[in-house]
């Protein structure tokens, strides 16, 4: 099949970017979107051009590495599907596909379709865990968890951290991502002791990262490859309000966001060789 790819090319965060069109005259409908880019890149390299940088790893929809906008929709038109599992047969013969990276201040661009999502790690780092050190756990069956709670927690925990929710949100809000973790741990008895402080800290970090505020629009859940429900955002709001009211020690820390990658290495590529 024939397709026309219009891809955002940008060498680095500071460079100017632009769309470049590439015809794909012999795409195979069974290819995934990423395999189509593989084929394009092979050609670009052979022609002496710079291949398109895009993030990918597991290619089975679970690692959360991949993702970009296809014609204005995060991960493209097929619901509950990441771009690595999106096959070209879902597009029309001769269609133009516009590929654009996630755009958000908290996801600074690295190159072409690759963005920096360390802000998500910092949100988890600020409180998205149960503070239980190795060795101190009671027997797995010591605390009973109703099947319903386990299922609901699993629904929220299915998040793959791809960032599509932020990308699709008109506000560029990370509420669905943050809410998913707060809901997952807040539902389970193991996460209850830290429920208040977790919500306070994670929300504070989410805000510190420069994401927009949630206005309950719901685009996030529409593009979410794991169909995380909007309910998790309500859970976050509830825990945040509850935590704000009950809080006593007033110790909310946030991690200062950083976007730098360079380690300031003194070792240069031209180092003398022995």
């Amino acid at each position, binding site marked *: 099949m024939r397709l026309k790819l219009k891809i955002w090319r940008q060498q680095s965060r500071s460079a100017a970017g632009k769309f470049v069109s590439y015809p794909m005259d012999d795409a195979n409908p069974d290819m995934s979107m990423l395999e189509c880019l593989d*084929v394009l890149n092979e050609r670009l390299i052979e022609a002496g051009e*710079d291949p398109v940088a895009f993030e990918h790893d597991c*290619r089975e929809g679970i690692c959360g590495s991949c993702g970009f906008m296809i014609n204005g929709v995060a991960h493209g038109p097929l619901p509950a599907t990441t771009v690595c599992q999106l096959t070209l047969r879902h597009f029309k013969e001769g269609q133009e596909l516009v590929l654009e990276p996630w755009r958000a201040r908290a996801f600074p661009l690295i190159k072409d379709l690759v963005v920096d999502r360390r802000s998500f790690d910092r949100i988890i780092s600020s409180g998205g865990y149960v503070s239980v050190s190795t060795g101190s756990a009671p027997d797995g069956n010591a605390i009973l968890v109703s099947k319903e709670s386990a299922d609901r927690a699993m629904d929220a925990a299915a998040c793959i951290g791809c960032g599509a929710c932020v990308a699709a949100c008109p506000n560029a809000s990370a509420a669905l991502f943050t809410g998913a973790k707060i809901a997952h741990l807040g539902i389970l008895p193991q996460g209850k002791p830290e429920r208040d402080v977790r919500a306070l800290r994670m929300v504070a970090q989410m805000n510190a990262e420069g994401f927009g505020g949630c206005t309950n629009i719901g685009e996030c859940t529409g593009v979410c490859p794991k169909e995380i429900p909007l309910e998790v955002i309500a859970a976050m709001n509830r825990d945040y309000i509850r935590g704000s009211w009950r809080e006593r020690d007033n110790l909310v820390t946030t991690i200062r966001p950083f976007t730098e990658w360079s380690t300031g290495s003194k*070792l240069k*590529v031209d180092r003398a060789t022995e």
Partner: protein
Amino acid sequence: MELNSRIPSGPIERLWDETRFNMKLVNPANKRRHSLIVVGSGLAGASAAATLGELGYNVKCFCFQDSPRRAHSIAAQGGINAAKNYQNDGDSIYRLFYDTVKGGDFRAREANVYRLAQISVSIIDQCVAQGVPFAREYGGTLTNRSFGGAQVSRTFYARGQTGQQLLLGAYQALERQVQAGSVAMYPRTEMLDLIVIDGRARGIVTRNLVTGEIDTHLGDAVILGTGGYGNVFYLSTNAKGSNVTASWRAHKRGALFANPCFTQIHPTCIPVSGDYQSKLTLMSESLRNDGRIWVPKQKGDTRPPDRIPESERDYYLERRYPSFGNLVPRDVASRNAKYACDEGRGVGETGLGVYLDFADSIRRLGRKTIEERYGNLFDMYERITGEDPYAVPMRIYPAIHYTMGGLWVDYHLMSSIPGLFVIGEANFSDHGANRLGASALMQGLSDGYFIVPYTVGDYLASNKLEKISESQSEVGNAVALVEQMTQKLLAIDGKRTVDSFHRQLGKIVWDYCGMSRTAGGLRLAIEQIRELREEFWNNLRVPGSAADFNQSLEKAGRVADFFELAELMCVDALERNESCGGHFREEYQTAEGEAQRDDDNYSYVAAWEYRGYGSPEELVKELLEFQYVHPSQRSYK
């Protein structure tokens, strides 16, 4: 070289306890002064880094992905075994131990496997406490399923995403330590060499994948949790980024590589659809519980499956293995699919596929039941192939899935280089020649949470580690080597892309060192690999520069290492004149076509020592002794 596996003597159930008691402890006040390097952030790496951080060490953790949460452990579907015996169906630590040794076709160390079975129990407790949402009974207790032909229900699971949930548990524990300041996380940073000073592993050389900066990180011990090498086959169920580079470069610095030819093939993957195919997608083995596997009796029968009458179908597993039928172990099911396709009876456009048919089950149980059991898998299959498996039979084909081989480690999980520890799939230790379902997650977490944190402490407390500095020549040499290699790859400026070489290499390895192997084929493969490697170093084209984000350059370095590993795999497979587990040599089979082990001559771990580029590696044997589980022939007739 002499290998000391440091397995203590005594009754097997007391070995680990006694080992722990005899270990020296690091003074709590001194822990902060020890800096440890953990490479990899999967189940093994993340759990080790988190636990070492909790203990108070100064930890640096590295991963090549953009976040530690992306490690490929995340893709494990089935579950994790533990000898909890919650189902009261007769499971025990001893039974899990027994099953694992037997399942590994008697090529694993008894002491290691026993410890794994003991620790399995604590892993579940730890993960539950972290908030892993394991499946539950209505009463609130943990539920189990039986998996991979086990006769007891000992597999814990979280839907079809057990690996994801366990990894997120470890990742969250890791992020907690990052926040606490005890672990410094370095994402998008790839280890490119090991720094060995005075015979001890003292640091690593890394490349920052965004800026291209080459850095050195020094410490008192290095822990590799860098996964398996299945991507040597190019097409595998591994993530695209999974690679052997960290292990291989450590190997070149003196760490022995054990049993590289022990690779596992998974029988139920979605077949290749074209040359552009970049990876294979696995579907849970549970499908074989209700699906019937068949191919047409006639060669080259291109009729659609519904036009092939029952009498012209060959349900070859049911025919050959009447008692186990479609539920024969992974290696047997895979090999038979290959034979059917080799005979020209494969289905689908490429002829590399067999049918997995649910029509009978749908008739017998109703579509609704099948939907409940396999709904997600059927959806995934339809998403990828565009075919509706409720209406037409699925097409499946085996794919490489796991590598049992890896860097050689002793009972303390320390490699042959003192101070270099290897955990998870990256080491060779616990699965012998074949891994049982739901054991990989168990081993990764066992190594990371419960073994290496102790053994590293013992190493630090029992050895006097000299002060080292960046200015030492060993550090400079390692950096220079890395930079040379980078420049060399960029300077070739040939015509072919990295992927094209990788694909071709994978095909050679798959054809001759895949599901079944022959001496002749392996010799041919070694020749072809060398030729192709020659071309690689003369005709490769890597665009861009070393000083920025360059995915082709990353891949080129990894494929260069795969070339060397591929050769060693073939050498190892050629040396092992027997069939066992995932290693099937056609010359060594019974009259019925089953694998034939040679316990008299090959009951050992084949550990290979690097002797310089181009020189043959030297084989060092670690003999295996079986005191508890006595070798017997597997039979599934």
